[in-house]
Structures are given as C-alpha cells and as structure tokens.
C-alpha cells in the first residue's frame, strides 16, 4: 500500500519536474518587437505554390509571403499594392498599371513588369485552376520596366477584384517557379519570407526588412498545424501560441467571457447553400424546389451548425457587403410548402441528400433538414462521404440535393456566373434560365457600379425565386488571439494579415 502511494508520488514529481524545466515560451530578449508570433492554423498547406494550391491553409501562410497588383482593404475595395496606380482606356478595353519601383523579391532580385507578365501567363498557359479568373484577358504586355498593359476582350469591371481578390493571383518569381522550388520554398515580395518548413509541424516566416510597405514590427510568424480545436485553444490559453482560428463553433460561447484571450468574430463573405439536381424528377419542378425552401428551418440549421455565430441569409451576400440586397420571400411555412407540393402533384418523394463528413456542420444540418422535409412527405436519405467522394458525386450528378459552402467571395460575378449561368463551370444543379443568363452576361461588362448592382440584385432575386440555390447563412470568421497582440483584425474575406501587428509590452 505504502509503496503504491510512493510510486504515484514519484510519477507526479516527475511530471512536475518536467514542468519546472520549461524553456519559457515566448521569452523575448530584445523587447516586444523582437517577438515571433505563433499562429495555430487548422491544417497543413498541401503546397505553397500560390497559383496551384486551392487550400485555405496554404493561403493563410501565402497571404504573408506574396503580393498582388492590388489588394482589398477591410471594405473589400481594391487598393494599390505592387501597382501604385492604374488607368482604364475610354473604350474600357485596356488597363495600364504603373508598378511600384524599388521592390525586391526575398531572394534579392528586382521586381519588374516582366514578373507580372510571367505570373499571369503562367496561370493562363498552364491552365492552372485560377485560369478562369483571367479568361477575359487577350494580351499582357510589359511596355517598360514599371508599366504593364492588360487588354481585355470586353469591358471587365471586376478585373481588379480578379487580380487582387486573393493570393491565387500572386506575383511570383520566375526562377523560383521554373525550378519547382516554389511548392515548398516560395519566394515572394511580401512582408515576410519563408525561413523554415517542417513537414507536418510548422512553417516559420521571418520579417522582410526591405518590405515596400515598411518592415513589420514583429520578428516573424510561425504557423503551427493543429487540427484539433481543443488542443489549439489549450495552446492559446497556456501561451504556447498567440493566435488561432482552429476553434470549434460550440466553444465560442464559452470563450466570450474569457478575458485571457481576445475573440474576433466577423460575418464572412462565405455562404452555405442547398442545391437540387434539376436533371432529376421531381426536382426539375420549381414548385417542389420552393416547397423545400419553405419547409426548411434556417434558424435551426444555423443553430446546430454554428451555435448562434452565423447570420441567416436568403441570398448569397452578407449585410456588410456593398453588393447586399434585401430579400425575404421564404420563411418557414409548412402549409405553404404542402400546398406547393400538392400543386406540383407530388404527394411524396425520396431524396438523397449529399453532404460531406469532412464538413461536420453539413452532417449536422442534414439531420435538421431531413426532419423538416419529413413534414411535407419527402423522405431524406443522408449520404455523407468524405469530400473527395463528395466532389465525384457532385460532378457525376449522383445526388438529389447537396449542401456545401463557397468561400472568399468578393465580386458577384465570381459566385453567380459559375453557379447559375447555363454555361457556368460550377452549375452542378443544371439550372438554366435565359433571363438570368442575360442579366449575368450584361452585368459582367457593365462598368457603371450602380447599374451593375441593379442587374445583380435582379438576377439574385430570380435565382432565389427559382430556388436554383436555397441560400442558408453566412458563417462568421472566428479567431482568437492573446490580448498582447495589437492592431490585428479578423477580416470578412478570411485573409490572415500579420504585417501590421505588434505586441504590447
């Protein structure tokens, strides 16, 4: 008996002794400015080539390594970055960008107009995943070292947001890209340069002292990959990390009163939606789709997926955006839904609802939706494969209804044309409405902002009326950081920018 107590005592002493040997995280010897920021992100980048990756984890890192010609401010208006200013010809077909002088890449080479031409041509010629964003461009020419001329086939009012909306259009270094090093050791012009990459563990960036926007105050940023939210939060609270976005939605309420951390919540431009396969009966009948839209309980869905952190919405665009328009045709109305089903002559139906286990919120939402639709005679079978299989099923049209989200939306052309135009590349639900097509085609080239917005408002209302998509809600960007971190804000476009942050003493 005694000996067992002794053993337990020895074991505890051992752990305590280990604790005592702490090397002291976050010790900085040269004042607050010499401190490195440690950020815990929820997964590992698949690769660091900004033109090839589609992973959000990659862009969290790349946001701090690369620049684009222009970049969005907090209101998502495009501001000068590598381009100092630009002019548009009277016929709206030639954009002339004047580039910033004296900018260097992290390897010391000079940034010139040739780098811009190389970067855009690389995306177009190699058919990389963002090639569609540059589809309007017919020619890119460097007229001198600091001037780039871009010619478009038709007026393209959203060219700036295509070029600057996210780091997939970053200006890369030709030697770095051609050698293939770019996928693990990218060289950019941004505020931080890559110092070290430990596979599976972390990526270390150091401040770029020659950054054109001024050297960052912090010494660097270390991104650690912690996919388990509770682990990341424990690391944040113990001071092991300074910032994280690996936060389970159900823990947000518990963090709100916690003064050892700062919680940043901002409605994002992302949206979750439902889409029914219009190549299949009875989903080709607009009345049945509307019945589904009336039957679902958006508030309940947002509650189970986001624990009150999301904003329900019947259209794609959140309130904070300048493209927002009012729309509230649908409310939960079972009687209305039943009478629509009766009009359509569909007393009952079976539906395969395709969600993905990689997105637990979609699985949770599916349970609520199944419950809602049972009330109007629709039997829902939930299928929740991993995301890879989900994509296969979507592309092959093996679904009756699916649920998914779209991220990082800035210009309406990005998310209406691809998803709802008959010729759209992501129109898996096979929606086709000539009126919507005409509006989207016209809005694409309309250069007057107010007139353009009016066109999108009209198209958006039609899309919702036809229930091409049933929009559900805009999730919040949820991040948490140490109170010592200053001048950081959680942005609606989920861009993680550390160039202007500092630590208080």
């Amino acid at each position, binding site marked *: 008996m005694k000996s067992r107590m002794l053993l337990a005592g020895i074991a505890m002493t051992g752990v305590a002794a280990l*604790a005592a040997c702490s090397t002291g995280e976050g010790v900085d010897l040269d004042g607050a400015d010499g401190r490195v920021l440690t950020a815990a992100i929820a997964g590992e980048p698949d690769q660091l080539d900004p033109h090839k990756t589609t992973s959000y984890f990659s862009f969290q890192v790349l946001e701090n390594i690369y620049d684009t010609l222009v970049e969005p401010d907090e209101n998502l208006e495009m501001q000068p970055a590598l381009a100092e200013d630009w002019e548009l010809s009277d016929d709206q077909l030639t954009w002339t960008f004047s580039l910033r002088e004296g900018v260097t890449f992290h390897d010391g080479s000079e940034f010139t107009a040739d780098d811009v031409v190389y970067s855009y041509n690389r995306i177009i010629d190699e058919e990389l995943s963002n090639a569609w964003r540059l589809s309007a461009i017919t020619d890119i020419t460097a007229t001198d070292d600091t001037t780039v001329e871009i010619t478009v086939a038709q007026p393209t009012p959203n060219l700036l947001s295509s070029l600057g909306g996210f780091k997939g259009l970053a200006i890369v270094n030709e030697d770095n890209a051609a050698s293939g090093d770019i996928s693990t050791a990218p060289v950019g012009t941004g505020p931080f340069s890559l110092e070290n990459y430990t596979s599976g563990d972390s990526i270390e960036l150091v401040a770029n002292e020659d950054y054109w926007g001024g050297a960052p105050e912090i010494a660097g940023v270390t991104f650690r990959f912690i996919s388990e939210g509770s682990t990341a939060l424990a*690391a944040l609270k113990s001071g092991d990390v300074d910032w994280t976005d690996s936060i389970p939605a159900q823990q947000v309420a518990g963090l709100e009163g916690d003064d050892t951390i700062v919680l940043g919540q901002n409605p994002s431009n992302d949206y979750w939606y439902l889409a029914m396969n219009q190549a299949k009966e009875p989903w080709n009948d607009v009345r049945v789709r509307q019945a589904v839209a009336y039957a679902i309980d958006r508030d309940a869905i947002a509650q189970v997926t986001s624990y009150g952190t999301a904003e329900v919405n019947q259209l794609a665009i959140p309130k904070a955006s300048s493209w927002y328009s009012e729309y509230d045709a649908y409310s939960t109305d079972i009687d209305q839904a039943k009478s629509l089903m009766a009009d359509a002559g569909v007393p009952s139906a079976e539906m395969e609802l395709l969600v993905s286990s990689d997105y637990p919120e979609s699985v949770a939402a599916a349970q609520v939706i199944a419950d809602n639709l049972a009330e109007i005679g629709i039997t829902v079978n939930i299928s929740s494969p991993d995301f890879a299989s989900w994509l296969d099923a979507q592309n092959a049209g093996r679904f009756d209804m699916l649920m998914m989200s779209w991220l990082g939306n800035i210009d309406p052309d990005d998310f209406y044309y691809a998803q709802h135009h008959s010729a759209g*590349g992501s129109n898996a639900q096979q929606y086709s409405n000539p009126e919507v097509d005409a509006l989207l085609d016209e809005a694409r080239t309309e250069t007057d902002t107010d007139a353009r917005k009016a066109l999108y408002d009209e198209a958006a209302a039609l899309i919702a009326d036809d229930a091409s998509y049933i929009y559900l809600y805009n999730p919040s960007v949820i991040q948490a950081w140490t109170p010592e971190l200053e001048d950081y804000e959680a942005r609606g476009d989920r861009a993680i920018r550390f160039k202007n942050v500092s630590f208080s003493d």
Partner: protein
Amino acid sequence: MRAVLENTTVRFLARRLAYTAVVLVGVMVVVFSIVQLVPGDPVRIALGTRYTEASYEALRAASGLDRPLWEQFVGYLGGAVTGDLGVSFRNGEPVTAVLLERLPATISLALAGLVIGLAVALPAGIYSALREGRISDGIVRIASQFGVSVPDFWMGMLLITLFSSVLGWLPSSGYVAFTDDPLEWLRRVTLPAITMGIVAGSIMTRYIRAAVLDVASMGYIRTARSKGLAPKVVTFRHIVRNALVPVLTITGIQMATMLGGVIVVEVVFAWPGLGRLVFDAVASRDYPIIQGAVLLIAVMFLLINLLVDVLYAVVDPRIRLS
C-alpha cells in the same frame, strides 16, 4: 557444433528475408489496387470547387494519372526497387524524403509510449498474477479493462485539460526533435506517450498476467517448490523469466502498431509523424504518399517480426526454427 548453429541461423535468416520480399510485393499490389479503388479523384480535390475542364485535363496529365493502370503500376514497382517511391501529388516532394522526415517523430513517440506501456504492464501484470483471485488482482484487471476500452482521443483531451490548461505544466502539442533539445522533446512527448502507453500497457498487462499464470501452473514449478527453493527464487528465476518469452510477441506487435503512427494521438497532439501524414494523404488522395507510407509501415512490421523471431531463438534454445 558452432558451425552447424551458424549454418542453420544463416539459412533461417535467408528464408525469412525471401519471405519478407514476397510479402512486400504482395503489399504493394494490394495497396496500389486499394488506393485506385477508393472513390475520390485526387485531381478534383487538388483543384477545389472552381476550375475548367481544361485545367482538370492538364493536371491529370501532369500527375501521370491519364496513363493506363498497368503502366502506372509497373512504373511504380520499377521505381520502388531502386528506392524511388515517386513524388507527392500535393507538393511534388519525393515520397522517400517526406517519409524519412516524418519517421523520427513517430519512432521517438513509439519508443516513449512503449517504455511507459512496459513500465505499467510488467509490474502490474506480474503482481496481479501472483495475487490471483484477491482484491488487488481484481483492481488491476478492472483498471486494465478500463485502459483497453478508453478512447485515446478522449484520454488525450483529458491529459491536455489537466496538464496544460489547468496546471499549465506541459505544452498541449507540437514536436521538438530529441537531437535538437532532449529536454524539450521530453516535455512535449510526455502527454502523447502517456496516452499511447495507457492503451498499450493495459493490453500488455492482461497478456503478462495470463502468461505468468500459465507458467505458474506447470509441473516443473511444482517440482521447484517441492524441492524447497525460496519462493522469491521460484517466482523470479523460474516463473517470470519463462513467462516473458511469449510476452516478446505482444511487445513486438505493440511496437509495430505504434511505429505505424497512431493516427488519433498524432492528430490530437499535432505530432508530425507517419500517422498524421497518412491521415492527410488519404484525405487528399495523395496516392504516392499513401503507397509509400503503407509500404514503410509494412517493412517495419516485418522487421520487428523478424527481430522477435530471432530473439525467441536467443532466449529459448528449445525453439528450433523450422
């Protein structure tokens, strides 16, 4: 006499190695087929949700996925023989280099987990067997049943909550190489190793208890007792020593399992080992990485089995290797 022994040993080893090679080729065929059969197109995953069909075709061709399957397999086998396991779909890194980079983290965690497991299992298993049927035996058996049943995910969370969040003694996650900073490695390996050690230790405890009871009921033990040997001598020199032979097997299996990377533990503690690599690679359908990692795990399994067989021969002269 010695020459004869060496001959049989050499012949035994040669046979084992040939057998190992056959198994490895079998593993490669199976793994290659399985990754191809799993639904989910690696190219579509890499492209995300917005792309054109032209982008899709271009990337498929670049990954070599547009070639016939048999051609892909022959190319893979040819490369594997020379140690070239291809390149990762995700970032174009050579698979061999990626595996070697991940191996130290997994090996160091597995060894730490095994040490903790044995430190629990040896005393608990022996003690429990010697006190068969008493209350203390019951306590050990219930505790080991608990240890086997407890989900390691939950155990890991519990340890993080206690030692990092509440007490603030140990970091919740992350890895530092033993060669860079042994002390920091120890601080970071402790919690994941305890998580793994509790499960492995519980399994081994039950095994050791059974082995000791088995030996204790044998005739020669009764003989030893009746000859009037001191109880301690009987217990340790005769029972425990002989009981440890079968325990080698279970220890080998536990070690091999841990070397495969305990996925859940590595994910919870953000430990950059093989388990997490496989987890990520399966999610993105990174065929070359999955194939390479499974091959490496199979090689380690076979090597440990070989080692256990050889140790058997060393500790038990009666075992004639047939």
